[in-house]
């Protein structure tokens, strides 16, 4: 067993938004950890709180209505939620950096690629002015951009989507961060370009020796990239285990249903499995019991009454479901009668 200290520890995180005067949690008591050099994937349908969770770690929540209400985010033992804006600025971009689905949201359209890269290096390194541009060019080389000496003088809109994502990656790794948070980094890309970018991310992760928190809704990408997987549903972690177990011995009915609903290339299927209904919105979140109950094929009556806890189903395998709750009597575990 790997007893290494975690690099990142999210502990009982509650992040909420004020909507019509009331606080609603988009991230509700989320805990998980990332070890050095580990790739942890966060997976779940859209609206499950994946992005809000990653924005919480980076302290990038919309200030006017969003806030971390409870919980700790420990990075190398320091609780990030306790840091001042200035201290957080120092960590962001240097120790932890982030890439997004749409690089245009993070790139400034009126500044050249080189200017924006130089800025990162200026803020976070002691490199001298004449070294900075050289480093920017070599970072572009590292992410597989040909003509890097010309690209530094170009503007973001002159590049293709795949190229822009490479530039974002170059900027994110400029200071050799210990943790890279990537929120759906390939979702907007075509599949052959996605393959290029995933390969690049793997190569860079190895070279830099950084850990990665990769957020995606695509289970194919998870299988490809993850060491460990955290499945989120409606703001909560419902399953947390290593990638092989997740795909070959999933426990939570939500995980199982997600896996079944993917069209398989290697099989001919007449009908696809589905998950009925949709993820509840923040205002329609069930106040009691399991949040998945209305969509769950294995629901029991008790699921509406008892809040399931995230418990260790086996070593290194946590599940939030009454079916795997040892304190809940086995004889009452009758699947599918409560739906």
């Amino acid at each position, binding site marked *: 067993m790997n007893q290494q200290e975690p690099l990142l520890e999210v502990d009982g995180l509650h992040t909420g938004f004020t909507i019509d005067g009331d606080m609603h949690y988009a991230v509700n008591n989320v805990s998980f950890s990332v070890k050095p050099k580990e790739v942890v994937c966060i997976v779940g349908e859209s609206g499950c709180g994946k992005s809000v969770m990653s924005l919480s770690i980076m302290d990038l929540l919309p200030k006017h209505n969003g806030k971390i209400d409870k919980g700790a985010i420990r990075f190398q033992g320091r609780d990030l939620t306790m840091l001042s804006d200035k201290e957080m600025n120092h960590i962001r971009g240097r120790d932890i950096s982030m890439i997004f689905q749409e690089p245009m949201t993070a790139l400034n359209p009126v500044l050249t690629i080189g200017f924006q890269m130089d800025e990162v290096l200026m803020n976070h390194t002691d490199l001298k002015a004449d070294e900075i541009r050289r480093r920017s060019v070599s970072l572009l080389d590292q992410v597989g951009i040909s003509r890097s000496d010309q690209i530094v003088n170009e503007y973001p809109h002159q590049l293709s989507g795949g190229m822009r994502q490479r530039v974002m990656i170059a900027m994110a790794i400029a200071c050799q961060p210990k943790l890279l948070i990537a929120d759906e980094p390939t979702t907007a890309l075509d599949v052959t370009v996605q393959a290029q970018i995933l390969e690049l991310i793997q190569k860079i992760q190895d070279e830099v020796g950084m850990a990665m928190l990769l957020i995606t809704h695509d289970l194919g990408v998870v*299988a490809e990239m993850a060491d460990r997987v955290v499945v989120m549903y409606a703001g909560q972690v419902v399953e947390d285990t290593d990638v092989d177990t997740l795909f070959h011995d999933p426990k939570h009915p939500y995980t199982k249903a997600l896996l079944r609903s993917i069209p398989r*290339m290697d099989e001919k299927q007449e009908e*696809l499995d*589905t998950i009925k209904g949709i993820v509840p919105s923040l205002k329609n979140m069930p106040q009691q019991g399991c949040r998945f109950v209305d969509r769950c094929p294995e629901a029991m009556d008790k699921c509406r009454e008892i809040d399931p806890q995230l418990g260790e189903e086996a070593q290194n395998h946590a599940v939030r479901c009454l079916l795997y709750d040892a304190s809940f009597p086995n004889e009452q575990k009758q699947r599918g009668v409560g739906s």
Partner: protein
Amino acid sequence: MTQESTEYLLQVHELKKYYPVRGGLLQRRVGDVKAVDNISLDLKRGETFGLVGESGCGKSTAGRTITRLFKPTAGSITFEGKDITKLRGSELRSLRQDIQMVFQDPYASLNPRQMVGSVVSEPLVNYGYGSEAKLKDEVMQLLERVGLPADAYYKYPHEFSGGQRQRIGIARALALKPKLIVADEPVSALDVSVQSQVLNLLKELQEEFNLTLLFIAHDLSVVKHMSDRIGVMYLGNLVEVADAEDIYRDPKHPYTQALISAIPQPDPRKKSDRIILSGDVPSPQNPPTGCPFHPRCPKAMPECSADKPQLKEVNRDHRVSCLLYE
């Protein structure tokens, strides 16, 4: 009508669709975006033909030109044995009863102030099948058939989730009992869980209404699930056409091979031998000479930059445009 042509509902022959590029002070035509450069395909009655390829390869342009929302630049389109390439006015209008489209984001094409009931009955009213009130029962049945609750009739599009809005779009497309439906990325905006609901529905409806379906998507696993036959597009051209299973089991074109290998498989024990393509897709305004794929092709030969390959049958019902097979 010959015996031959009745088997096919739709025949597309050497279709081209170019968009003019204008420039200079006088906005003269300075070039063309060759969005669809040369595609030929035949749809048998009752089959689903999948058109797959990455963004910008011309799928939507092909779909909209085939349904005659756009005017073709060259080539011919035959529907039920009748040449529809140049139809105009009332003839084109009546063709629309037989050919309907379903789009990626029905929301963008739905009037937010129109109740769902009137959204779905609109095509019927337009084609003189009676007033909205008279058609209410029929529309209610349609809504129920696509899996919407009965009170959907009186609601507005924004009150529905993405998957439900796609059902509204499908109900509207079905209203006139068309013979052909062209579905352009109908599930691309949806989560897999909801995507599978809509795909199942489309399959059921196809059988029930005896529809012929041209199913367009960038996701090959979705296209393979839906289709009897598949055409793979690259830069405005069809590079391979075969049965859905054959495309997957025995892809011939190097682009198809790369496309399949790039799809991440949802199983960590299956690490695929990935073919990583270099570079980006060239601009359709200035396509490469010869084979459109040759600058990125791992198997390119010197002659690939000179000769443009044509689709040729290499196995029974399996056509490829690649010099490797000539």
